[in-house]
């Protein structure tokens, strides 16, 4: 009866649609979006170079963003100096995720389509974070970066000794058999931490991907039910989810980083 109020569309596939191949690489629609994001950030970087003492409106926005991020990281890491150390990496990850979450919500931008050789019509753009490959790459890069920072803080053997704890066994058995057995338990706990590092990659990437993909799918389901008025509330919710997920991802990276710094401070 109220069929005219709804807008039907097919559910998006969980994989990004492939557009064409360049040599051995496949260019999917999320790749196009990533390139678009990179170009936008280069333009922004060029524009942001001309800083004045009396800020323009544009400069104000950038400074507000910088101060917000510095505040966020200072709350997690503790001091402003340490926050300034993580800001270049975590801050750029934040801006990239925010861009990929929010730009697809601009009306019309996802309506461009691409027709390949076989005449199949696929959308030209797909939000970067709505593709599992992008989020997995981001999470892997973040965890590897944290590991590299950890090595630079503790030294290679100091860091490996954190995972493969042979030392507590030797020192423990010198004292008594009971402490030696506890040392063996510590050895296995160290091995479990290796799995923990891998689990970080999976949970970080699946969280971001799942949220953005869920939003896309549920938008289409809601539009299929009723396409007047109600989707506005849902899009507002989407903006909130996009911002919160960007904050969650970067805060978690910063937390992992601060864990390393704190252990260094305790003198382990």
């Amino acid at each position: 009866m109220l069929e005219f109020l709804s807008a039907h569309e097919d559910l998006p596939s969980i994989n990004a649609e492939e557009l064409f191949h360049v040599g051995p690489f496949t260019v999917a629609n999320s790749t196009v979006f990533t390139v678009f994001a990179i170009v936008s950030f280069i333009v922004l970087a060029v524009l942001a170079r001309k800083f004045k003492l009396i800020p323009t409106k544009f400069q104000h926005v950038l400074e507000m963003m910088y101060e917000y991020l510095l505040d966020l990281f200072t709350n997690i890491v503790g001091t402003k100096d340490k926050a300034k150390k993580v800001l270049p990496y975590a801050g750029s990850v934040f801006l990239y995720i925010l861009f990929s979450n929010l730009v697809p919500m601009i009306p019309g931008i996802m309506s461009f389509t691409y027709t390949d050789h076989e005449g199949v019509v696929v959308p030209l753009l797909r939000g970067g974070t709505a593709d599992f490959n992008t989020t997995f790459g981001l999470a892997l890069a973040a965890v590897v970066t944290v590991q590299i920072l950890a090595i630079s803080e503790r030294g290679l053997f100091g860091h490996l000794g954190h995972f493969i704890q042979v030392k507590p066994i030797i020192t423990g058995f010198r004292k008594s058999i009971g402490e030696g057995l506890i040392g063996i338990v510590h050895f296995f706990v160290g091995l479990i931490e290796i799995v923990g590092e891998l689990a970080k990659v999976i949970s970080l990437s699946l969280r971001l991907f799942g949220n953005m993909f869920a939003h896309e799918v549920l938008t289409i389901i809601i539009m299929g039910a009723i396409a007047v008025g109600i989707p506005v509330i849902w899009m507002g919710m989407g903006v909130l989810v996009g911002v919160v997920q960007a904050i969650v991802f970067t805060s978690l990276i910063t937390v992992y980083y601060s864990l390393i710094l704190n252990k260094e401070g305790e003198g382990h």
Partner: protein
Amino acid sequence: MDAAAAIYIAKGLCILAMVGTAIGQGYLIGKGLEAMGRNPDTEASIFTKMIVFVAMTETTAIFAFVAFFLLK
């Protein structure tokens, strides 16, 4: 029982993930509101943290959601 029916049952079981997430979010928001009531000065800071942790709690439901769509 054919395969399609089994998939529908599995999809239904995926929905059970909502139970845990709902309990977690309710507990988190309840405690957050309690803290805000006790100390209204810190309301802004607690509210932002609450929203962030609610998003983290949602992760388990999102995992179930991904599994839901991987079942075909």
